[in-house]
C-alpha cells in the first residue's frame, strides 16, 4: 500500500522531470507561454485583492462610525410603500429622550444638528462641517478628545460658545500651535477652542478629521435655528448600543415606540427612517461583492487568453513530439501515462506563470497600498488559491492536447518524422 503510494508519487515526479526537460528544450517558447498565464493570474489576483480591499475599507469606515449603532433620520421611510400621512420627516429631542428612557441596552445617544461654518482666527480661515451634539457623541462614535476636553452637559445646558476641532481644521487654523484655550470666530461670534479630537484618518478620500463639534444648543441658537421646522427638531440621531444587543430587535422596538409617538397606523409610511450599522455593512458587502465579481470577471478574460495560449502551445508540443509519444507507448506507456505527462507539463507551465503573476500582484498590491492609500490585502489564502488555480488552468487547457496525445495509435505515432 505504502509502496504503491511511493511508486505513484515517483511516477508523478518523473512526469515533472520530463516536463522540465521539455520546457527547457524550448525555453523561449515556454517563457512566452508562461507570460500569458502570468498576466492572467496577475490580473485576477489583483482584482480579487482590490475587491476585498474595497470591502475592508468600507467596513473600516462603517466601523469608524461606531460598531453597534442605529442612525435615525427625520425622513419618511419610503422603503415599505403605503399611505403617506406626513408632509415631512419628524424627529425631535423629545423623541431622543423617549428612546433613551424606554429602549433597553442603550449605551448612549447623540442627537445632532449639522451645518457648514466659517472659522476665522488671526487672518486664517477655514470652512468645515460642524456637528452640534451632546457629550454622548464622543461615546457613540468612538471619538475622544486627544487634547483638551470634549463637550460637557454643562456646555449643552448653557449653550456655551465652545468648540472641539478635528485635527485637520486645527492644523489649517493654527498650524502646529496648540489651539486649546484660544478664541476663534465662527460666523462672527467668538468661540473658545476646548479640545482637539484624535485622528480618525480618511475613508474613500473623505477626511474624517475635517470636522468641528459644538453643543447642540449652541448650534441651534446660532446656526441652524431658522432652517428647522420645529424648535426641537433634530437632523440626525445616533443611538449607540451595548455589545451583544441585537440590532434588529432594537430597531423593531424603536420603530414601535416612534410609531406610537407619531400615531402611525397600519401600513402608513413612518415619518422617520432607522438604519443600523449592521444593515450598512450588509448592503455595502453586497455592493462590494458585485464590484469584486465584475472586476474578477474582466480580469478572467486575460486569464482565458493565457489558457488558450497554453492549449495552443501544448498542441504544438504534442505534434512535435508525436514520435516520442509513439516510442513511449512502444516501451510500455499506457494512455493514462501519456495523458498525465502532458497534463503535468501544462500544469508546470501554468504554475510557474501563476507564481510569477502572484509575485507581480503582490508588488502591484503593495504599490497600491503605499501610493494610493488603498488597502490591497494579498493573504496566504489568495496566494495559495492563485497557485492552485493556475494548476487548474493548466489541467483545463492542457486537458484536450493531453487526451489527444494519449489517443494516438502507437505505430502511427512512431512512424511520424
Amino acid at each position, binding site marked *: 500500500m505504502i509502496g504503491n503510494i*511511493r*511508486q505513484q508519487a515517483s511516477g508523478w515526479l518523473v512526469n515533472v522531470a520530463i516536463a522540465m526537460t521539455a520546457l527547457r528544450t524550448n525555453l523561449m517558447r515556454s517563457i512566452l507561454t508562461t507570460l500569458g498565464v502570468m498576466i492572467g493570474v496577475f490580473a485576477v489576483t489583483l482584482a480579487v485583492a482590490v475587491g476585498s480591499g474595497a470591502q475592508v475599507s468600507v467596513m473600516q469606515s462603517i466601523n469608524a462610525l461606531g460598531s453597534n449603532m442605529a442612525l435615525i433620520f427625520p425622513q419618511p421611510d419610503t422603503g415599505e410603500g403605503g399611505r403617506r400621512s406626513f408632509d415631512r420627516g419628524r424627529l425631535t429631542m423629545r423623541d431622543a429622550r423617549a428612546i433613551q428612557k424606554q429602549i433597553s441596552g442603550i449605551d448612549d445617544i447623540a442627537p445632532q444638528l449639522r451645518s457648514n461654518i466659517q472659522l476665522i482666527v488671526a487672518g486664517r480661515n477655514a470652512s468645515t462641517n460642524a456637528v452640534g451634539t451632546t457629550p454622548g457623541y464622543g461615546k457613540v462614535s468612538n471619538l475622544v478628545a486627544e487634547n483638551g476636553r470634549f463637550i460637557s452637559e454643562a456646555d449643552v445646558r448653557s449653550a456655551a460658545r465652545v468648540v472641539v476641532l478635528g485635527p485637520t481644521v486645527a492644523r489649517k487654523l493654527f498650524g502646529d500651535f496648540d489651539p486649546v484655550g484660544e478664541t476663534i470666530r465662527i460666523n462672527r461670534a467668538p468661540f473658545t477652542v476646548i479640545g482637539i479630537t484624535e485622528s480618525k484618518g480618511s475613508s474613500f478620500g473623505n477626511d474624517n478629521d475635517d470636522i468641528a463639534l459644538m453643543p447642540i444648543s449652541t448650534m441651534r441658537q446660532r446656526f441652524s435655528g431658522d432652517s428647522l421646522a420645529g424648535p426641537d427638531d433634530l437632523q440626525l440621531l445616533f443611538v449607540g448600543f451595548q455589545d451583544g444587543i441585537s440590532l434588529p430587535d432594537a430597531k423593531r422596538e424603536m420603530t414601535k415606540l416612534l410609531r406610537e409617538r407619531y400615531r402611525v397606523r397600519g401600513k402608513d409610511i413612518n415619518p422617520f427612517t432607522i438604519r443600523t450599522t449592521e444593515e450598512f455593512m450588509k448592503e455595502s458587502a453586497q455592493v462590494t461583492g458585485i464590484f469584486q465579481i465584475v472586476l474578477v470577471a474582466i480580469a478572467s478574460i486575460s486569464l482565458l487568453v493565457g489558457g488558450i495560449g497554453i492549449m495552443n502551445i501544448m498542441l504544438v508540443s504534442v505534434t512535435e513530439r508525436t514520435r*516520442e509519444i509513439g516510442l*513511449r507507448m*512502444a*516501451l*510500455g506507456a*499506457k494512455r493514462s*501515462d501519456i495523458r498525465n505527462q502532458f497534463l503535468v507539463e501544462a500544469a508546470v507551465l501554468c504554475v510557474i506563470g501563476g507564481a510569477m503573476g502572484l509575485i507581480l500582484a503582490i508588488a502591484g498590491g503593495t504599490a497600491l497600498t503605499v501610493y494610493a492609500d488603498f488597502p490591497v490585502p494579498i493573504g496566504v489564502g489568495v496566494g495559495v488559491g492563485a497557485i492552485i488555480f493556475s494548476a487548474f488552468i493548466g489541467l483545463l487547457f492542457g486537458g484536450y492536447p493531453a487526451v489527444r496525445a494519449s489517443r494516438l495509435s502507437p*505505430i502511427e505515432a512512431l512512424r511520424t518524422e
Partner: protein
Amino acid sequence: MALVETQDLVKKYELGGETVRAVDGVSLSIERGEYVAIMGASGSGKSTFMNMIGCLDIPTSGIVRIDGIATSDRDSDALAELRNQKIGFVFQQFNLLARTTALDNVAVPLIYAGLGTEARRDKAKAKLEEMGLGDRLDHSPAKLSGGQQQRVAIARALVTDPVILLADEPTGALDSKTSEDIMQIFESLNEQGITIIVVTHEAEIAGHAKRRIEFRDGKVIEDVVVNNRQKVSS
C-alpha cells in the same frame, strides 16, 4: 505452446480507393528461444508484420497470440503492459530521447513498469554495463557513436527482462563492422534464452539466425531452418 503465434493474419490499407494488402494471410508460430530472420523485398510487409506481433499495430483480421494471449481480446492498457513486460523493441533509427542521458533512456520502460527512482537507476545501470557502456551512463545520444547508441537502445529493450526481442533492421544505419558487433550481442542474448526476431535485407545479418522467413507481397514464401550455424534447432 508457441511464444508467438499468428493465424491468417491480414493487414489492409485503403489508399485512394485502392486496397493494399500489406500482410496477406500469414500463419506462423515461433517457439521460445528461437532466432528468426525475416527477409524480403522492400514493401513486402515485414515491418507491418513485426508491428502487429509487437502489439503496436492492430490487424485487419486474423489472430496474434503472445505467450498464448490473443491480443485482440486485450484493451490498450493490457497491450501496453504486454509490450512493457514481454517485448523489447530495437529500431533502425535507435529512437533514443535526445538531451536525455543513456541511463535515463534505458530507464524509461521501468517508469511504466512502476519502479521507484533507485530501482530504475540500478537496473538501467546494470543493463548498460552488460552492453559495455558502463563508462557512458551520463552521455546524451548526441555524444555517442551509432553503434553505442544502438547498444543503449538494446539495453533499453532488455531492461524489463522481456522474452522477445523485436528488431526491425537494427543495423540499417550502421557500418558493417558495427553491425557485426550488434549481431554478436544478439547471438549471445539468444544463447541466454531470449527469443529474437530480426527484420533485415542483408544476408550476412540473416546468417546469424537459426530460422529464415521470406516475405513477398505480404505472404510467407519461404520458411527454413538454417543449418550453417553450430547449433541447429530441430
